[in-house]
């Protein structure tokens, strides 16, 4: 696959903003996606462990983590849509080829994800009171977790096959015979996949610190449980940190030749520093963890670390395709479109900011309140503003539309 071929696969319509904008948004939204995935995997695993424990605290944790996992799947899916969009804007030659060559698995991905999600719900319906009653049908959750890993594996293969254009032809037409069935997963790296999956341990540990802080705002009866959570979160964070560094090192040690430069690049040092900072930060905080909003900071820091890791992952892709294959994702033809570009950023920053700010504040406050929560005047005004902004958005949709139509 020479550079001329790769460039020919680009979409002739070009892109409506500078390609760098899509690349950056891709990295940011992917980091959020993988954070949700890791919370989901970690929470499922904790649920599974806790469900078999006799310790009432473990059982309570299992119930809470089950609710977390259920919501986290939804969040992981919706956050996955954004990088799915952006990756095919500037890396379309690679993304489409990688998908078509494993087409059957791409379709399988949908079915497997549905089964995995339903299995999680079935487990929930069989165990509405997991905190107090013995677990039933645990295999539902085992299956769900395993299938989620299969889904992640398919994602991994698609991401990885993008990086190996030199092998595409031998996958598509082994010995010169075209095989259009898309039945195989061709390119993968077990160590890379393990790294992203094992990060779940540290991420769910950070999540536990936040969960603990959230409970502290509620009532005093939880004191025993809250105290019990602390050493657990610390231990998981330590184990998670070690696992991340070890599996990361293993991944770097097994990079194929054309990507070997990555192992010693600055990207790695920065990522390692960010991960280690996240792992040690809760210990550094000590008692402060229980004061004001500090308990939420480990998770916020973890999110930043994931953005750094995501950036390194992107650097690996960009420079590998540029250096070894002569494809520069950033020289995409631009057909600048100001209207849709600004509409997105306004919707994202203003509507997204205000509305999600309102919704999450209400959700958080309601969780912290005993009985019925009635928002303050200021928050209610934010709610009315949210509705107003949405109506305004719909009005501009039609106003611009009728204008264009009549022109």
């Amino acid at each position, binding site marked *: 696959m020479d550079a001329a071929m790769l460039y020919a*696969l680009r979409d002739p*319509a070009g892109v409506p903003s500078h390609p760098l904008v899509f690349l950056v948004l891709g990295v940011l939204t992917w980091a959020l996606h993988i954070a949700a995935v890791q919370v989901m995997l970690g929470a499922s695993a904790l649920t599974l462990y806790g469900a078999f424990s006799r310790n009432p605290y473990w059982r309570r944790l299992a119930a809470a983590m089950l609710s977390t996992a259920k919501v986290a799947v939804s969040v992981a*899916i*919706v956050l996955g849509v954004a990088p799915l969009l952006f990756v095919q804007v500037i890396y379309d030659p690679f993304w489409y080829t990688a998908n078509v060559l494993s087409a059957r698995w791409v379709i399988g991905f949908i079915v497997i994800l549905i089964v995995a999600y339903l299995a999680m719900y079935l487990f929930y319906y069989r165990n509405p009171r997991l905190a107090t009653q013995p677990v039933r049908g645990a295999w539902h959750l085992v299956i769900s977790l395993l299938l989620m890993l299969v889904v992640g594996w398919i994602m991994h293969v698609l991401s990885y096959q993008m990086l190996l254009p030199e092998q595409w032809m031998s996958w598509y037409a082994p010995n010169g015979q075209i095989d259009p069935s898309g039945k195989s997963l061709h390119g993968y790296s077990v160590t890379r996949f393990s790294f992203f999956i094992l990060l779940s341990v540290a991420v769910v540990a950070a999540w536990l610190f936040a969960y603990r802080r959230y409970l502290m705002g509620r009532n005093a009866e939880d004191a025993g449980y809250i105290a019990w959570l602390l050493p657990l979160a610390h231990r998981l964070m330590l184990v998670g940190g070690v696992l991340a560094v070890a599996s990361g090192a293993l991944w770097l040690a097994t990079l194929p030749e054309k990507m070997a430069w990555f192992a010693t690049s600055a990207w790695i040092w920065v990522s390692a520093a960010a991960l280690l900072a996240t792992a040690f930060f809760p210990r550094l905080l000590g008692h402060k963890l229980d004061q004001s909003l500090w308990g939420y900071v480990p998770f916020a820091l973890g999110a930043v670390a994931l953005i750094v890791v995501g950036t390194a992952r992107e650097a690996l892709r960009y420079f590998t395709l540029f250096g070894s294959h002569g494809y520069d994702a950033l020289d995409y033809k631009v057909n600048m479109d100001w209207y849709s570009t600004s509409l997105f950023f306004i919707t994202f920053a203003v509507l997204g900011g205000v509305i999600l700010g309102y919704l999450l504040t209400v959700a958080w406050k309601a969780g912290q309140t005993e009985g019925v*929560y009635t*928002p303050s005047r200021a928050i209610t005004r934010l709610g009315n503003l949210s509705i107003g902004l949405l109506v305004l958005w719909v009005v501009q949709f039609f106003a611009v539309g009728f204008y264009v139509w009549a022109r």
Partner: protein
Amino acid sequence: MEYIGLFPMWYEPGIGSGWVVGLIATIHVLFSHTAVGAAIFFAYLSTVSYQRNQPELLEFIKRYGLFLLVFSYVLGSITGPGIWYSTTVASPRGISALIHSFVWKWATEWVFFVIEVVGVYMIIYLVGKVDRATHLRISLIFGIASYGTMLIIIGILSFMMWPGKPEWFVEGGYLNGFYGANTFAQLAMRTAFMFTMTAVVGGIVAGAIKDVAFKREITRKLALLGMASTLAGGLLFMWYMNTLPDSAQVMVANRLPDWFAVSLVSVLGGIFAWFAVTWLQPRLLSPALAMVMTVAVLVFGLWPEEVARESIRKPYVAGQYVYSNQVIARDVPGMGIKSEIPLIERKGFLPTQVFVPAQLRVVTESNALHAGRSLALTTCSNCHSLSSTGMRPLAKYFGGNTDVAQVKTYLQGTLGTGNTIYMPHIPLNDAEAYALARFIVSLNPQSLRNPLRTAAAESTALVAPTIKE
């Protein structure tokens, strides 16, 4: 070296990739319409509950919300990306054309998705935990955001059929591509039918109401909404058909089966009758019956609609410039897009395609069959199955013709000239026409059952006709 940007092919011998996409899309339409319908209905119930001070209604939302919203929501949110993934593998350049013109619109829709996902959990889990005015606010946010996703996707779907305004081809620009008479007609029609779906799906919820008087009130309201929206939808459908461009009108006149209009009218009539009956006899309404009705609307309403939409945009898959077989069919100066037909006419498919094994780039007597298969895969298999099952099996159209020269003449005379309205212009030089003809002749239904299943099966299948000669 110049290339045309065709991706590798995915070929599904059983039912064909087109049907895989169609199935996933139809299921998604059911789930997503159910979700939007339920969201609007719940916003309504939430309002009633607030105005009349009937908190039990919110309990009701909570119970059924869990079932309806989470299920249609969970499955809707997976089948949504599912359509995307399946079109990615079935028609990469089709989806790519939409993405590259409308990425910001999709990104904007994504903001609404995020709001929806947060909102849906809050509507369910915050019942009784926040005051009712706040719950109502959240329901309204959720309802409008849901509708926002529809506003966006309709413009993109309209473009897929036909760019909003013809100026788009010359001037380019997102607005010209997105907005046009067809966009608004489709939006109005879909909005009407969305309320029809709301009324049908609302029946699942209303059927379970215990309080007889209240059940009657709600059921009748739903029935009125249903009758009005079905009527409006039918009329708007006619408007919609009138906004179709001439080429699509020709397709409608020639390609849609005669029974299509009859079936459409009877489906709408049937739905109307359903609402009339539930208006007259609200107590007959049960969740099970309403569910049967929901599925019936899916099978007899949505599926034929998907199929019809698919067939009237032939031979294009997106924006009237990307052919179903992925070749760029015409210049779009507004976007700096060049037709790939001239290059194919000059040099042929095999030398200019990226994904062709080296030994097939030049047709020879010994590789003709394989080269022909490669050509059939890229130029025909998006619309014609190469096996005996699936969509329009190619073998059937050539009915066991074994005369290579005759088939070759046919290919060059029809497809090669681009005179068939529902098929792309497929220029074939002598060597490539010969290769394709050799392959088509080898598909003779008697001698071969499933010539393209896999590479392994192929080695036996393809050898057979070669030896025969």
